[in-house]
């Protein structure tokens, strides 16, 4: 490897990725509405958000595929286009097309001619798990194999930042696991990874940090457990025949009540007082209190009727970042 990583004793001086007050408007649609984000070298960041939240638009700007309406993006201190030209950033995009008339191996070889320094073609094919189908025409490859091919191409320049837009789409369970173990290996050697996904388990399992966006703004930013805490509140579940939902809703700190036959599910920020009420004032039994999982946190934070998390995004993001 030509590029021997330099170890710094102190914190690195340049961020892997820096988005500053980033905006992108398409006509009257504000796809990205003021995103500030700093990713340090070596971090694995999941970019999470519902469809249309602005994930792909933001990623396009990180890669120089589109120009911000306002604000700026730097990748290791470079403009995105220059970072791409140096092979510092590579990406696996959903939209990147492949030529059907080339073989898998030829596609990687052709791409490798465009960089100054590259890893060997066979090595990246091996890493992406497609060395055995190097002679297969791209048009005959499955969606998962094509996705691995895009991954192999992204590995060619040994990028310092790897950006992945829904990287495991079309891969089976085993393929997904292999993919992530390959990614993990590299991050241990200092590669920064930013991935957009709608698989929450994936974000939970593989990211050091999760950035949640909604309507083009960051609504939460922290570790998976911090995000779970953010959408504070727990679910109290109990068996209570003939429960009166209207009465339960008047309890302090209750956000929602759901009745399923004899079972009641109460979402509440003050779960203790709800439990106390149920156990002392009613005939409720089999009482359980559970914390929300990441998926519930995700829905709570990104749904259109999301509470203060949506109205005070900056404060949330800041408080969590400073807690780290």
């Amino acid at each position, binding site marked *: 490897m030509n*590029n*021997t*990583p*330099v*170890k*710094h004793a102190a*914190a*690195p001086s*340049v961020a892997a990725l820096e988005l500053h007050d980033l905006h992108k408007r398409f006509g009257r649609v504000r796809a990205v509405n003021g995103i500030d984000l700093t990713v*340090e*070298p*070596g*971090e*694995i960041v999941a970019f999470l958000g519902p469809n249309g939240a602005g994930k792909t638009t933001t990623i396009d700007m990180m*890669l*120089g*595929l*589109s*120009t911000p309406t306002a604000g700026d993006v730097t990748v*290791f*201190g470079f403009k995105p286009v*220059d970072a*791409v*030209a*140096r*092979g*510092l950033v*590579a*990406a696996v*995009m959903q*939209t*990147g*097309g*492949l*030529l*059907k*008339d*080339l073989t898998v191996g*030829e596609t990687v*070889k*052709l*791409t490798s*001619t*465009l*960089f*100054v*320094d590259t890893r060997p073609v066979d090595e990246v094919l091996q890493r992406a798990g497609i060395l055995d189908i190097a002679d297969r025409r791209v048009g005959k490859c499955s969606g998962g194999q094509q996705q691995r091919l*895009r991954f192999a*191409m*992204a590995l060619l320049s040994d990028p*310092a930042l790897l950006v992945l837009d829904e990287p495991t789409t079309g891969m089976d369970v085993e393929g997904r696991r292999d993919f992530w173990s390959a990614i993990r290996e590299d991050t*241990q*050697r*200092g*590669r920064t990874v930013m991935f957009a996904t709608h698989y929450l388990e994936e974000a939970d399992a593989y990211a*050091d940090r999760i950035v949640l966006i909604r309507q083009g703004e960051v609504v939460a930013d922290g570790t998976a457990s911090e995000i779970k805490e953010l959408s504070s509140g727990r679910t109290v579940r109990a068996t209570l025949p003939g429960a009166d939902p209207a009465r339960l809703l008047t309890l302090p700190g209750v956000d929602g009540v759901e009745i399923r036959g004899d079972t009641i599910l109460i979402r509440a920020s003050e779960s203790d007082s709800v439990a106390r009420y149920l156990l002392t004032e009613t005939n409720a039994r089999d009482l359980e209190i559970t914390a929300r999982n990441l998926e519930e946190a995700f829905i709570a934070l990104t749904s259109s009727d999301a509470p203060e998390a949506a109205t005070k995004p900056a404060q949330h993001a800041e408080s969590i970042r400073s807690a*780290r």
Partner: protein
Amino acid sequence: MSAQPVVMPDLNRRVPPLGGFNVTFVRLEIRRLLRNRRTMIFTLIMPVAFYFLFGYSSRGDTVGSANAATYIMVNLATYGAMVATMAGAAMVSVERAQGWSRQLRLTPLRPAAYMATKIVTAMTLGGMSVAIQFIVGAATGRHLGLDKWILCGLAAWLCAFVFAAMGLFLGYLLPSENAMQVMGPILAVLALLGGLFVPLSVWGHTFREIARLTPAYGVGEIARAPLHAEHFDWAAVPNILIWGALFSLGAALLFRRDTKRV
């Protein structure tokens, strides 16, 4: 994770010269073109087949002061160069439709270097088409002085740049996986109007005057000039200059729009 030492990657990396334009890439592109059976048939085989069908059989006749078979050979070499350069340049259209040009934006290849690669690839294929036609002609008894072989060949090849530009222009205009299916018939009509299939003298005055303004006319007239210089129509020179400039300008404008939008 915060316990891990931070490994700072080496940021001193080189940028490829010429925006990523390189010979290996061009060679792979040409191989790709040649592997396409349809491209092979239409650019390299069909013009030669036409020569055997319509040219070789009229080797006893003359057109003006030139041997008819030689005249037809030069016309068909011009036609082959037209189809080949256009097919090469029109790959832009297919690659945009398949999203490949977007994928290439994730590499150091600058858009202008991509366009240059397409032009060089297209012109190389055009040169191959002319060379094959001339080799077959020489092998089947066409006689020309060495200077005329070279002049005719160079003229047919270089003037076909007009069609490389037209291919790029249409390639950026119509992103389609089947661009050549649209362009093939257009080229056949242009070749007919340009007098590459039959001399324009077989037609009436009005039709001839219109045909003289079409882009293939200039290319053919210049390519044939070494055969019978006394008949040369000087209108051919502004013809290729104006068409060449128009298509290049159109391609450049669409290219810029495309680069901004991707």
